[in-house]
């Protein structure tokens, strides 16, 4: 029952997000609806967190969590109802080819096995894992147990390990859910993590179906399912899937905008980048790298004037983050504990570069905790080769720049960390890889040859490329 309640308490936000995205971006192809549901999951939850936080900030009361979700849902329903003639919420009919049915069968079998494994792991992980106790659920407890003094969770007296300066997307939603349910029910944060994982699957597969083929999207889904680290992380109630979701969403929207030139898609990208920054400090880095990707893409397509829509989407989350970081939080441990002399010494220490590079190299083979490694995925890419048949590849450069810069930023943070480098790498590298992996997987599968082309010689249109 607790499992069900955990999902129900966030359901209005999830549905509201989906309907609002549907209202902003028309179309009823099944892949587009899947994509809109995925985008809506993240945007609905993040919007709810942001509004709940603003109420908390101004009133020192944890109120209105469910009301906010229901109001957003009402807005979504009204907009959908008003646009029903032009933009009905009914999926178009579609069929699968024989090849697609075969891949779908494999996908469903692996999905069932993974879902079973997730349920067992989630049952065995009733309160999440270390980062949940240390950061997200701890912060949620500070807010839920004493909302009048919620800012104690940002106390500089908290030991650096607790990361008191972390943004609050996840903890505010957890505290809001507990407040709605009337108790600290640990299945709620677990459900929130799972929603973001479902969102990742929907965005990844919806976008690849939309831009390429159904078979290609199913292969991408199978690849992600073959990485148990993703469902482990969902059960552990950590925020890494949330960052991964927003990085994937922002970069996916690059491709969608490039195809359709709809301003609404840029607004959504601005929101998504801002929400990444409202999730974790690593998201703050993405605020820079994701914005660079959009800048590069719009510049290359001579659309720089459209940046105003990106700024519009980014405005609210950015304003909240700037206020939060400037006026509320203690200094970040990475900068607070570093001295300029120490930083220069670390920058000049080439052994540190080599050590970090060796660890990243090892991750290429072990990331995911499964049998499928990044190395094997790359080998598959080399075998099937790049797809050059359509124009979907235009934003590949811009999106790759964002992923590369994000990785370079992480590399720099390791170089400069005041903490023990081995400990820092051991405890965080795989989580940083989680942030960028779904986006990298999306770029990879959108760029390589699809199974329809390999097996039939000509690409079969996907279930939604008829628009």
């Amino acid at each position, binding site marked *: 029952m607790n499992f069900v309640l955990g999902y129900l308490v966030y359901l209005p936000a999830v549905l509201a997000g989906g309907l609002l995205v549907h209202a902003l971006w028309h179309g009823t192809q099944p892949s587009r609806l899947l994509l809109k549901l995925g985008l809506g999951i993240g945007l609905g939850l993040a919007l709810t967190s942001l509004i709940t936080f603003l109420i908390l900030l101004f009133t020192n009361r944890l109120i209105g969590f469910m009301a906010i979700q229901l109001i957003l849902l009402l807005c979504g329903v009204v907009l959908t109802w008003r646009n029903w003639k032009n933009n009905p919420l009914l999926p178009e009919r579609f069929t699968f080819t024989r090849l697609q049915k075969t891949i779908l069968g494999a996908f469903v079998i692996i999905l069932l096995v993974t879902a079973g494994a997730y349920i067992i792991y989630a049952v065995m992980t009733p*309160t999440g894992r270390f980062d949940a106790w240390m950061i997200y659920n701890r912060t949620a407890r500070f807010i839920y147990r004493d909302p009048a*003094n919620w800012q104690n969770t940002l106390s500089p007296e908290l030991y650096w390990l607790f990361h008191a300066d972390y943004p609050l997307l996840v903890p505010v939603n957890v505290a809001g859910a507990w407040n709605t349910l009337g108790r600290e029910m640990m299945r709620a944060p677990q459900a929130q993590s799972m929603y973001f994982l479902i969102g990742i699957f929907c965005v990844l597969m919806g976008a690849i179906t939309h831009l390429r083929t159904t078979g290609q999207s199913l292969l991408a889904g199978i690849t992600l399912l073959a990485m148990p680290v993703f469902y482990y992380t969902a059960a552990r109630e950590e925020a890494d899937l949330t960052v991964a979701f927003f990085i994937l969403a922002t970069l996916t929207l690059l491709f969608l905008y490039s195809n359709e030139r709809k301003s609404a898609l840029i607004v959504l990208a601005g929101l998504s980048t801002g929400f990444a920054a409202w999730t974790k400090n690593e998201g703050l880095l993405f605020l820079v790298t994701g914005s660079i990707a959009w800048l590069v893409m719009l510049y290359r397509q001579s659309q720089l004037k459209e940046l105003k829509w990106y700024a519009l989407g980014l405005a609210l989350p950015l304003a909240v983050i700037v206020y939060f970081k400037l006026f509320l939080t203690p200094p970040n441990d990475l900068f607070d504990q570093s001295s300029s002399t120490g930083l220069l010494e670390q920058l000049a220490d080439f052994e540190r570069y080599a050590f970090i590079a060796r660890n990243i190299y090892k991750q290429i083979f072990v990331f995911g905790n499964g049998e499928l490694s990044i190395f094997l995925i790359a080998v598959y890419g080399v075998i099937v080769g790049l797809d050059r048949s359509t124009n979907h590849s235009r934003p590949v450069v811009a999106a790759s720049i964002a992923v590369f810069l994000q990785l370079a930023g992480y590399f720099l943070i390791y170089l400069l960390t005041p903490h023990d480098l081995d400990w820092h790498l051991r405890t965080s590298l795989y989580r940083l890889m989680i942030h960028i992996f779904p986006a990298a997987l999306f770029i990879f599968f959108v760029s390589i040859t699809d199974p329809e082309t390999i097996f039939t010689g000509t690409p079969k249109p996907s279930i939604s490329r008829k628009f």
Partner: protein
Amino acid sequence: MERIQAWNPTLITNDGVYDWDTRLSVLRSDLPVDVKVVGYVSDWDVLPKYNYPNNETEYVLTQYTMAPVVVARDDEHEWVIVNLAPKDFETWRATQPSDIQVNKYPLGLFLVHKP
């Protein structure tokens, strides 16, 4: 076969957090409600050799349980949670003023009040 027979399905959902909450529950109720920050002392403050992961996990779980009270990593506060074996507690106590008041709890847990 013995292990299968000894298997208790209720333990599958016990990941240690519940135990730690239970361990600290009496101490938490003894702490005055207006206290917002307490200190924390453990092996890593007293012993030359200690198990870092265990110390870190116990400290994190203590903070997690005590929220919304901040558990600072020092003994410079009016109230201090001491998580030490009784022998090591006496070593630490010898470094403190003589008038500190000590509440003792099971399993090497102490709540110290410095008047």
